[in-house]
């Protein structure tokens, strides 16, 4: 239980007096950087102050002030609090902000997302295409003046949903009788859809020249997905191949883009909770956790003591089942069809039984509330948890390790296959087990402890080779550490109320901003919420670890064989609900 490595607050305004000012709006923190000097300040933050990990990039639209703001959160991988800095641009087309991709490569996809959804152009970004929507889509949906086709009112609860309201189907309010919106005078017969040339041009053409001039070879582009059994959902990847070797690769996503941010900004604070379940649908408890602590930060309310322990128990059970599924699915991808996955699902069902008993649903738990949790753990369920944690899960983990780890085929496929080294991982903002398998002991439960994690005795699982085998073994390490935490949490859990607040449908959230983050099984799961004191968040953004980890996919796969691509993708442990949101 060490103190965070660095707790002093950096005074950036003193270092760059004319360029940086402190954000003085009530409830806000951090610094506002002039956009002309953004790259200079960011480079200094990385090189002089050691903020090597860029966590989020997102935009906020302020039409009333005629401004667009880009918000950055950067952290140190040695731990401690982060820094938030912002830059503002006038809301006059074109809205331009310099790109930070050369300072932190992890900004790549996030800047593309901000361009796609907010319409902020990042000058200097080499490949600024839409990422979640398709090229040719009309408008930038997260702008405050952009209305979706089924728009009814700015914020919920809608008046038509009250008992006295005359409810109309959304379809009947829309001129196209469907979830559609075309510009006026649009003629569908004359429309020429945009081609995907831009995507294919963005692939680096193979530079490998055949030594033998008689043998003419050419590289080919292969599209994997969105319907492919091994892309873990609806991910599409355009791969450029030279023979069997991957020379360039671009993930194409958005096939499951469910408009989480836009719907979130219409919802009330509590209404968002069930939507967070559906982000990373393997780990709804972890998603709830992140959102709950973010809003609690804004509301400045404490969490009931017993609820803190219940939260930890649920989050760690979630981690165990996620990593078990990871192992099963990885072996599926390696060719051990189904058998290990069936073993993993057997254990997962037992954990889901616990979730069902406490929350009422197997997968979409919707269990956390601001200030606590919604229901207590009944005694018989507690007994079940104890049995699982003390007997069943450790034994089954041992069993899986015994069956799999020394397997000759598995070792031949995984050992020595480079995934990421520490530098590449941090550069691409990779978090979670992949970062720790590359030798960086960055685990938010230790690096920036939240909830009651500072009370438990556990080790941060870390391995140093950065190869696939280490990436695989670290999941077992994490399962063991999670079980250790669970054992202590079960022992220490106090009696008492499960919520520090009265149950309420509408919470009062003072104006301000908050960024809350938890160590989800996939990596750093962050929520950025801006409140203006109304019952709905003004801006709601999710920092999805799966999405940002994908930034490193090209680095990981370049030079490897296409047959290993599927296994390398499995290493990132992506879930499309979280990638596309």
């Amino acid at each position, binding site marked *: 239980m060490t103190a965070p490595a660095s707790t002093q607050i950096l005074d950036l305004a003193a270092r760059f007096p004319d360029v940086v000012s402190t954000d003085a709006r009530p409830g806000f923190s951090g610094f506002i950087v002039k956009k002309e000097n953004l790259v200079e300040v960011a480079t200094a933050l990385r090189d002089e102050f050691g903020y090597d990990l860029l966590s989020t990039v997102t935009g906020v639209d302020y039409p009333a002030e005629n401004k667009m703001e880009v918000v950055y959160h950067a952290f140190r991988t040695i731990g401690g609090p982060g820094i938030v800095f912002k830059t503002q641009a006038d809301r006059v087309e074109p809205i331009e902000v310099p790109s930070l991709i050369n300072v932190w490569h992890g900004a790549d996809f996030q800047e593309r997302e901000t361009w796609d959804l907010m319409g902020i152009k990042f000058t200097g970004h080499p490949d600024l295409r839409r990422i*979640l929507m*398709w090229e*040719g*889509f*009309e408008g930038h*949906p997260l702008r405050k003046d952009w209305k*979706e*086709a*089924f728009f*009814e009112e700015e914020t919920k609860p809608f008046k038509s949903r009250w008992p006295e309201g005359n409810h109309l189907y*959304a*379809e009947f309010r829309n*001129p*196209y*009788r*469907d*979830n*559609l*919106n*075309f*510009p*006026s*005078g*649009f*003629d*569908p*017969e004359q*429309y020429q*859809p945009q081609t995907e040339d831009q995507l294919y041009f963005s692939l680096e053409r193979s530079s490998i020249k055949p030594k033998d001039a008689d043998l003419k070879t050419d590289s080919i582009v292969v599209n994997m997905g*969105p*319907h492919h*059994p091994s892309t873990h*959902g*609806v991910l599409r990847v355009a791969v450029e191949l030279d023979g069997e070797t991957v020379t360039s690769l671009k993930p194409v996503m*958005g*096939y*499951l*883009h*469910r*408009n989480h941010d*836009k*719907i979130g900004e*219409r919802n009330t604070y509590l209404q968002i909770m*069930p*939507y967070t379940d*559906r982000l990373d*649908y*393997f780990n709804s408890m972890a998603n709830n956790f992140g959102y709950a602590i973010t809003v609690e930060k804004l509301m400045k309310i404490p969490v009931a003591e017993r609820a803190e322990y219940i939260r930890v128990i649920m989050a760690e059970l979630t981690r165990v089942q996620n990593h078990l599924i990871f192992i099963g699915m990885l072996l599926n991808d390696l060719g051990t069809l189904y058998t290990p*996955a*069936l073993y993993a*699902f*057997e254990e*997962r*069902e037992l954990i*889901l039984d616990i979730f069902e008993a406490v929350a009422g649903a*197997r*997968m*979409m738990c919707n269990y956390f509330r601001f200030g606590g949790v919604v229901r207590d753990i009944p005694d018989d369920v507690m007994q079940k948890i104890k049995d699982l944690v003390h007997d069943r899960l450790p034994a089954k983990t041992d069993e899986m390790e015994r069956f799999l780890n020394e397997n000759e085929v598995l070792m031949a496929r995984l050992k020595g296959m480079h995934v990421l080294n520490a530098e590449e991982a941090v550069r691409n903002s990779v978090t979670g087990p992949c970062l720790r398998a590359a030798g960086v002991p960055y685990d938010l439960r230790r690096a920036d402890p939240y909830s009651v994690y500072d009370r438990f005795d556990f080790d941060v699982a870390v391995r140093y080779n950065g190869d696939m085998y280490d990436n695989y073994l670290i999941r077992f390490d994490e399962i063991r550490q999670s079980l250790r935490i669970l054992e202590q949490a079960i022992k220490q859990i106090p009696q008492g109320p499960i919520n520090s607040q009265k149950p309420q449908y509408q919470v009062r959230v003072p104006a301000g901003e908050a960024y809350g983050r938890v160590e989800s099984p996939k990596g750093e799961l962050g929520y950025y919420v801006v409140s203006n004191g109304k019952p709905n968040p003004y801006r709601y953004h999710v920092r999805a670890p799966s999405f940002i980890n994908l930034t490193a996919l090209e680095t990981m796969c370049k030079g490897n064989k296409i047959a290993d691509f599927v296994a390398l993708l499995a290493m990132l442990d992506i879930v*499309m609900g979280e990638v*596309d949101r």
Partner: protein
Amino acid sequence: MEENKYEGLNLPNYNIPEDIQNVVSVTTLDRLYNWGRRWSVWPLMFGLACCAIEMIAAQAARYDMARFGMEVMRPTPRQADMMLVSGTVTKKMLPALIRLYNQMPEPKYVVAMGACASSGGPFKEGYNVVAGIDKFLPVDVYIPGCPPTPQALIAGLIKLQEKIDKQSIRKVRWYQKGKADPNYVPMPILGPDLIDVRRNAEYKEAAARKEGAA
């Protein structure tokens, strides 16, 4: 139980001697045909969203869809009988989904699993969400839930088996000459918004009306 193997195959009211019950069956061609198909509905291996995880759970040991002859997930549409739309269909994904459906050989069935596939579900208001796959594909069975539990999924698939039982070789369209598939879906186009080419005239008219109003 030996008899269970022939469940639904024998016509009632025929007393087959006990010692040849596993060898001889008195039945109609329709019954034989439907019996063969209902116990081998091969789903297209196709996960869209959260529901796909429950679909996998239904395949796994505890629920074991193999009991219903549905464990053979086919990654290629050419070998699949049933498309299990397991999750939110987005506008960006829809062209791929339609292409898969058009590639499936007949007879083919569509099951809308969960609230999203049935109606758009909690994400209906989203700008990238298709509010129900039935706007494009002919759905045979809707399964409610968000996500439906594996039990609910299996209940829905049993409903599909019951539907198959009622079909007759003489009447089903795919064995009749010169009858084009009325459910054939032309590929939608991704334009400023999703363009369903069957509704082009309607869009044009509404867009012109909008211009007049503006």
